[in-house]
């Protein structure tokens, strides 16, 4: 028998600590719940500290706020006061010039929908916000990406910062932002820049990293300066990846529109969505939400055409379109109805509502069965463990201590047998999984979590990662947010597992079948940009307030990056590699397995990272359904104007996401090294 590897020791330690926790927990209460006396008043420290700091920073912040309000007001005035025929005309002309007849039709029908929905003025307010926030976010993201690429030493710091920017939910720092920057749309603008810049930075970093070394060397040999190398050679060759970043930034900025509305300050389309959501008026909120989706799709396709295709269409036609629209605009006030007088989709909205009602009424039993099935047999066991979830009422029998003992015995034997056969880690891991299944994620004792995460970190990334994981988890414990944190962990674990499997599959199918992708792509755009508030209503009507509804809402949002990045990774394999594989007689499936998947692994892993982060960021929206996890704490803080609790709960959420992400990434890295990639 070989000497035990560190992984075996780690797994063994986790098993022993877990076993100790299970035996001790009936006698010592502190094993399962962190003693309240050991909680530091961190939230009130943060509250006082930040409030003091804000008093200092306030003048500066208010200046920034004033400065930002100028471009914002300018864009706002121009867009709101321009006659709509002129705005539509100019955008149509641009669409024609960039993308020919197809893009023209898209622009006309999209903007036509916006106009006829009666939300023209509101959507121009929204557009003003996006017009200002996207360039800022792109600029910030690009600069950060470049810097991280130039100075490798700050790479890790930058990545952590980006993760934090994406994981600390906006609602958590809304109160602080309001205190600092004052009331109004500028706060929405700043929040939107904070949230939308990271995807750009990330993709710039990844794109520059993956520029072929030969290309770089060629530039150096030609005597280019560093700046020339960067901007003439490296950035252009990374443009495809960077465009993914641009696309994602635009999408993220549009998804933040709703946050800007929560603050208020101007009457935008997000505000309309909030109002209709409050009334549970699904149809009307869908129409308002679709307006945001339309803007996202138009911005995406136009920026795509601008960057990816060299073909430009006749500017004469474009000019003609503009001239016609100018002519129309001059008579608009007298001849055409005002932008607020349209309401073409009222009937449609009402139809959607009554369809939803009828559907709920007709399928009540089926919906209940789906919900109860998922709750009883998947979610609840995951949450509170088989030990508590298996009841006569649901499973038909009562879980007893003897059953737990039997399961442990069986898996213990399996572990020993597997250890003797040389796969001790797998055996011990199975034993741990069986333990988690019986105890449940929400009931995991904290000593076990500390030790096992530390051990995992050690195995995956050495002492540094282990220390990181342990300190971070300790921070949550000390803040006294352990219970909501475990609930968050449970919801996200469930959602991410489903998203990875389902999203990966959809991405895979899309990459081989363009027809599928042509359907999947707009659906992805739709889910990523429509304010998910819109879907809370039907989800609530089908499945009522509760965790299953929250779980579905998280899945709907977090699956998109998995699909997108899998697709993008699988389709961006260099032609030469594919040709070489085909020439050597590989079948389609072999090409996929041997060439495409390994080559695309880094991109897919980025997708996994994004899925984890998205799932955590969605917890806050899911709290509107009614959950009891960290997301709800953030709302409580928002309601009480409690700066400390908000920031602490946001930080705890970011910590969970970061630790999960770092562990996954470290294991993936190890795997890649093992495969020699």
């Amino acid at each position: 028998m070989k000497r035990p590897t560190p992984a075996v020791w780690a797994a063994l330690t986790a098993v022993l600590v877990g076993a100790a926790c299970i035996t001790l927990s009936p006698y010592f209460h502190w094993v399962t719940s962190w003693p309240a006396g050991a909680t530091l008043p961190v939230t009130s420290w943060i509250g006082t500290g930040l409030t003091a700091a804000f008093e200092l920073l306030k003048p500066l912040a208010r200046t920034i706020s004033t400065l930002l309000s100028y471009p914002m007001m300018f864009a706002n005035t121009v867009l709101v006061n321009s006659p709509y025929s002129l705005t539509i005309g100019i955008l149509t002309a641009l669409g024609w010039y960039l993308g020919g007849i197809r893009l023209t039709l898209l622009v006309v029908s999209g903007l036509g929908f916006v106009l006829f929905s009666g939300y023209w003025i509101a959507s121009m307010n929204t557009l003003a916000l996006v017009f200002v926030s996207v360039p800022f976010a792109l600029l910030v993201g690009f600069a950060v990406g470049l810097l991280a690429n130039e100075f490798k030493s700050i790479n890790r710091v930058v990545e952590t910062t980006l993760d934090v920017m994406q994981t600390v939910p906006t609602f958590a720092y809304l109160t602080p932002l309001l205190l600092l920057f004052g009331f109004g749309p500028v706060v929405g603008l700043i929040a939107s820049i904070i949230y939308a810049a990271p995807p750009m930075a990330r993709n710039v970093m990844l794109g520059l990293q993956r520029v072929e070394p030969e290309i770089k060397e060629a530039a150096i040999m030609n005597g280019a300066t560093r700046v020339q190398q960067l901007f003439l050679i490296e950035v252009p060759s990374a443009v495809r990846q960077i465009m993914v970043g641009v696309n994602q930034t635009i999408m993220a900025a549009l998804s933040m529109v709703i946050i800007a509305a929560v603050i208020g300050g101007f009457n935008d389309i997000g505000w309309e969505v909030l109002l209709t959501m409050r009334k549970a008026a699904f149809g009307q909120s869908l129409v308002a939400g679709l307006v945001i989706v339309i803007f996202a799709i138009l911005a995406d396709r136009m920026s795509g055409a601008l960057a990816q295709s060299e073909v430009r269409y006749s500017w004469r036609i474009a000019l003609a379109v503009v001239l016609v629209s100018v002519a129309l605009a001059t008579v608009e006030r007298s001849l055409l109805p005002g932008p607020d007088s349209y309401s073409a989709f009222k009937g449609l909205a009402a139809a959607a509502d009554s369809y939803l009602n009828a559907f709920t009424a007709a399928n009540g039993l089926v919906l209940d069965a789906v919900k109860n099935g998922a709750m009883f047999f998947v979610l609840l066991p995951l949450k509170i463990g088989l030990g508590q979830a298996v009841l006569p009422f649901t499973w038909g029998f009562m879980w007893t201590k003897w059953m737990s003992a039997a399961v442990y015995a069986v898996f213990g034997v399996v572990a020993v047998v597997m250890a003797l056969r040389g796969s001790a880690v797998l055996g011990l891991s199975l034993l741990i999984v069986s333990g988690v299944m019986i105890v449940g994620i929400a009931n995991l004792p904290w000593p076990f979590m500390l030790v096992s995460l530390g051990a995992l970190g050690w195995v995956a990334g050495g002492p540094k990662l282990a220390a990181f994981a342990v300190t971070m988890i300790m921070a949550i414990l000390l803040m006294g947010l352990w219970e909501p944190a475990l609930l968050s962990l449970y919801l996200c674990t469930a959602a991410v597992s489903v998203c990875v499997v389902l999203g990966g599959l959809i991405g895979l199918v899309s990459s081989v079948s363009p027809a599928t992708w042509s359907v999947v792509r707009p659906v992805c755009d739709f889910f990523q940009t429509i304010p998910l508030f819109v879907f809370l209503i039907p989800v609530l009507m089908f499945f009522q307030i509760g965790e299953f509804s929250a779980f579905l809402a998280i899945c709907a949002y977090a699956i998109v990056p998995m699909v997108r990045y899998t697709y993008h990774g699988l389709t961006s394999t260099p032609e030469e590699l594919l040709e070489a594989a085909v020439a050597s007689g590989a079948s389609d499936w072999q090409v996929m397995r041997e060439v495409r998947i390994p080559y695309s692994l880094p991109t897919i892993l980025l997708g996994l990272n994004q899925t984890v982060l998205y799932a955590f960021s969605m917890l806050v929206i899911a709290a509107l359904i009614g959950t009891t996890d960290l997301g709800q704490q953030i709302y409580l803080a928002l309601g009480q104007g409690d700066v400390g609790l908000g920031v602490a709960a946001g930080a705890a959420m970011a910590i969970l996401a970061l630790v999960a992400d770092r562990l996954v990434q470290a294991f993936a890295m190890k795997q890649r090294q093992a495969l020699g990639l």
Partner: protein
Amino acid sequence: MNKVSKLVSTCAVLTLLSGAAYAAELGAVDEPIKLAINEWTGQQITTRIAGQMLQAAGYKVEYVTAGYQNMWQAVSEGQIDAALEVWGSNVTEQYKQLNKEGKVEDLGELGLVAREGFAYPAHVAELCPGLPKWEALKDCASVFATAETLPEGRLVDYPGEWGTPGADRIKALGLPFKAIPAGSEGALAAEFKASVERKKPLVAVFWQPHWAIAAYDLKFVELPEGKQECFDDPAYGPNKDATGDCDFIPTRVFKAAWPGLKEKWPAAYEILKGLKLSTEEQQPLMGAVDVDGKSAEDVTQTWIEANSAAWKPVVEAATK
């Protein structure tokens, strides 16, 4: 204090001396008074009525959409000048804090008679025949039970940030129920909607005036009468060992303003202070907006034109 406002207040004093009783100066008529428009229809109606009263007095008015939870900092800094329908039941801690520090001024009650309680759609009375008597809930708990709450009944509570009145009352009254916090007002409305469509049992903490009361034919459970004693003295109410074993005390609905309002627009301050709107006045207007789909602007304008007797005296008292 700047020169202009000094001048204004001097003028106000002079006017008083010259004999025009109790009326105030208009103040900075060229600057718009910014009124908060919050997320719910009733508030928007109240605000637009107030706005048109101010306009009738010769002011400019700007309506600023503002999140109800997040606007208090702005009110304390004068970025919003007044919020005209604030519910005592779910106003944030931040407001209480700022009000205590004198940074937000309470302008008195609006006149709405708000009621909160345990509400259920009318069809539920057939499923639990003892309703609306609260004792009926004891025997019907199993009717309201769901997968998550079994064997207890399910009571949908207010969103967490509004407090836990449902859970508190269940405990005090000893009801075999479990409180599930709704995440938002939309979630509450969706619950009622689904319950009515599917004819399923539901009881939730809710309030009126609200459009859903009429739309889903909601009734209130008759809990022991809510009085202050009930919250001070355990002996009051059916449970002799607990306080809070009774219905809600009627919520105070009031108006709040930036403290600088009084000085900058003295007459406007008087108008907003005098502003009253009753439940009977507001409810049909809410229906016209939420059920008939009219805009709040149109509805309030019609009301202002038709009911000058109700609001003119307030404006005149403040300006003449």
